[in-house]
């Protein structure tokens, strides 16, 4: 660090690169937000311009809120995302604890098996999943989405969390056992609080693909009552005519909840890091 401070030009280049990347990454978001507040003709004539009094229009938001059941879609997305994250974190952490804490026959194989899902995309199994859901009568339910997303999120969660749980002091767990804590109490009260930063990381990694997913809602739950936001926004995209005002407004609205969740988790992440102190 001191070296970087003594070389201001180097530091400037680093910051330049970071700023450039930030701009590139934020540009689509910026474009979406800005154009969502413009009238249809202004979107096409000057897509890069900021909304002016003459081009400002809330028509997109009005369409989204009046047409269709957007509040319902939001609710569906939130339920699916939050429940899936909760299940991924709970089961992922439990599996990770078992793999990292206990010596049993087939421990390594089991770990590999559970990590396999990181390498094989779950979408390859779409047909089988759909058949399964049809057979179980779960098509057009949020449960089907939650089950699929939980399965999709678990491999990475287990992989990351078991690495972190290996770093939790053995002595601490031993002290808990001597003090008469049950294995569940050791897991929930000693280990989980110490791997909270990792849990927050996993939550963020799990949340974003679920919130943004179009594939499984389209296949497993396309019904009106179970549509998610991403799927709901598709109704404004037609084969010949696309209501860009509505699409951009819907997408802008869809950013909000995920931002809120992200802020909550990143708080946890920072608090976890600063309150550390295992010893």
């Amino acid at each position, binding site marked *: 660090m001191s070296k970087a401070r003594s070389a201001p030009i180097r530091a400037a280049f680093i910051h330049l690169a970071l700023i450039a990347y930030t701009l590139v990454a934020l540009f689509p978001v910026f474009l979406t937000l800005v154009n969502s507040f413009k009238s249809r003709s202004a979107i096409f004539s000057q897509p890069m311009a900021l909304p002016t009094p003459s081009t400002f229009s809330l028509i997109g938001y009005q369409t989204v809120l009046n047409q269709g059941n957007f509040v319902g879609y939001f609710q569906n997305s939130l339920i699916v995302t939050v429940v899936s994250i909760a299940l991924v974190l709970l089961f992922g952490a439990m599996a990770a604890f078992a793999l990292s804490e206990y010596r049993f026959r087939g421990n390594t194989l089991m770990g590999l098996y559970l990590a396999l899902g990181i390498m094989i995309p779950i979408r390859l199994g779409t047909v089988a999943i759909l058949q399964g859901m049809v057979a179980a009568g779960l098509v057009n339910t949020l449960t089907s989405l939650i089950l699929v997303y939980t399965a999709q999120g678990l491999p990475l969660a287990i992989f990351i969390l078991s690495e972190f749980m290996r770093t939790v*002091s053995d*002595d*601490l767990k*031993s*002290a*808990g*056992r*001597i*003090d*008469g*804590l049950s294995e569940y109490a050791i897991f929930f*009260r*000693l280990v989980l*609080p*110490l791997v909270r930063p990792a849990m927050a990381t996993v939550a963020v990694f799990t949340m974003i693909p679920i919130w943004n997913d179009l594939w499984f809602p389209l296949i497993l739950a396309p019904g009106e009552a179970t549509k998610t936001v991403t799927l709901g926004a598709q109704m404004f995209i037609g084969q010949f005519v696309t209501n860009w005002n509505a699409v951009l407004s819907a997408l802008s609205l869809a950013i909000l909840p995920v931002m809120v969740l992200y802020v909550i988790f990143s708080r946890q992440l920072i608090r976890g890091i600063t*309150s*550390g*102190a*295992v*010893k």
Partner: protein
Amino acid sequence: MGSLQLKSIRKAFGNNEVLKGIDLEVKDGEFVIFVGPSGCGKSTLLRVIAGLEDATSGSIRIDGQEMATTPPAKRGIAMVFQSYALYPHLTVKDNMGLGLKQAGTEKAEIDTRVAKAAGMLSLDPYLARRPAELSGGQRQRVAIGRAIVREPKLFLFDEPLSNLDAALRVQTRLEIAGLHRRLKATMIYVTHDQVEAMTLADKIVVLNAGAIEQIGSPMELYNKPANVFVAGFIGSPQMNFIPAEKLGDTGAKTIGVRPEHIALSRESGDWKGKVIHVEHLGADTIVYLETEATGLLTVRLFGEHAYAPDDVVFATPDRASLHRFDANDRAIV
């Protein structure tokens, strides 16, 4: 009350046998120290006694009761760890009281016991703090307090001083010694530091490669080591080992002589040699010699001496303090 009997304890991790049949008897109120080099199995043995590891075979009795299938919390033990292992989210008071709370002790009783232990260890001002707000020495005192509060039959210490700096280590050592005198409790203590072992123990158990080399009081180990390993492990600087044939002794394989049992003279003596290096420690002077008769020799002289490298000197061992070892490295008595 707190006696312990171990009978042919074995512990294997896969094909790797870590403990190879340990027999040990600890009487009520004794302070027993397991000492040995890294990887000799001393910590594993302690964990087996605590119930944190299951022995592969053998029997563990605490106060005459078989403990092999008893979980750690029900064995009547308390353990102090090298890394303190305090619960980071609990205050000092809750850290100390958790074990009792889990056992269903009444709150008033917990409070009295915590207050008593805190008083003993001068922890009163810190009871409301969390471990992160304490220094290393204070944390180790909390860990010891957590053990005292349980009023266990057996105290188990797993290298409790290794994470402390030198000054604090001496101070905490004295505290532990004082604690043992006051509580008259049975204590089992693991360390690789022979100074801790010599200063604290009633009885030292020297372990090597998963087996007991010798059990005895500190002075027994120092004066009558049973074999070459114990002779070399106990005492600092290490005992000098000289092949017996070089000294014309055909009845033994190795002759051992402690550095403090050799006298140096510039005029005359048994072994003529040249000084290689001198360490001046104030109270002691350590002289390293190369002699024709014995090879490299360490000599510990009390007080200050003006030897310098390349001086020619004569070394004379104290005949009465020689240790003789046979071909199997066992002491010849």
